[in-house]
């Protein structure tokens, strides 16, 4: 899970989930905690989906 997808592609990660921002990839300090956690849940759901999806090459789970 990373913000800078091109770097993850360059270094060879196979399942990539794009995140929010470099200093807070899984959160957003501008939002109240509940909304931030909702963002985190959505991103982690994507990560779990990525882990349960067969891939044959580098894949970005938008």
């Amino acid at each position: 899970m990373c913000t800078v997808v091109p770097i993850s592609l360059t270094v060879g990660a196979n399942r990539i989930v794009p995140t929010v921002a470099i200093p807070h990839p899984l959160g957003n300090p501008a939002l109240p905690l509940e909304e931030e956690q909702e963002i985190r849940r959505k991103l982690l759901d994507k990560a779990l989906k990525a882990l349960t999806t067969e891939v044959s090459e580098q894949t970005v789970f938008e």
Partner: protein
Amino acid sequence: MAKFRVVHYINQFFAQVGGEEKADHRPESREGFVGPGMAFNAAFGDKAEIVGTVICGDSYFNENLETATKEVLGLISSFKPDLVIAGPAFNAGRYGMACGTVAAAVERELDIPAITGMYKENPGVDSFKKDIYIIETKNSAAGMRDAVKVMAPFALKLAAGEEIGASVEEGYIPNGIRVNFFEEKRGSERAVDMLLAKLAGKPFTTEFPMPDFDRVEPKPAIVDISKATIALVTSGGIVPKGNPDRIESSSASKYGKYDIEGVFDLTESTYETAHGGYDPVYANLDADRVLPVDILREYEKDGKIGKLHRYFYSTTGNGTAVASAKAYAAAIGKELVADGVDAVILTST
């Protein structure tokens, strides 16, 4: 000037002990040269002499890495050498690893110059090219004569403490250290030559290789995520407050492993980031923004995932050498597999 005392390290095959069936041959030493040592000795002329040869089977060495290295080093140092030559190993992978390990250990622990020779695709090259000089050889023992021609004078130069030139002049495999030298042609003419080769689809060698990264085969999908043990790993530098392992803010020389048994939320008073590559304010206030322990605990409780692994691993990704990152990944991966972890979520900043 007295002749340099040289010890030669070779495997069971080149010592004519035997082939694969003798690969478990234990370390032994003999006086003087054995097998290919004869050619080296001749090439040294009156400048150096092989005083002893240390022989070890490739399987024995690689399967008993630590003890074999120790044994071989002991045998080598008993000859009180000024210089050690290992191999050349050509394209033999295990022999290459052994030669690289021996030469690197001799330099590191005995403080004696040591070199080896390998074919450029030998796996030993990537492992050791930064530690020792590896002379590039052909891919089979048929290249022995050519290898000796380059290795012997280079080894003498190293033993004499002379300045070592650029890889292309000396014949060693590029080790990432840039060394200036004068080419035969000026740069513009080299550029024209290179362009003509590139246009004709002929091989050419760039004078400065761009950084290059590995590719790995994707692993199969997790069949049932609700039964899976998931571990968190981050290059975002999340550490317990106070950074107990003193992980560096950039160019990290280590990674940390932290127990999160009973931890349900990373708070301002318990966790922080050691990372110097981004504004730490947000991660220091709530490290879940980088390492989502809070939500994964929730998922664990709800049965959405099997289990959150008891430990998380952390390092700082900025400025950290690719070689270091690779080494950390290998070590972490090994532990995770041993601990029965099914999947990893790696968060990076």
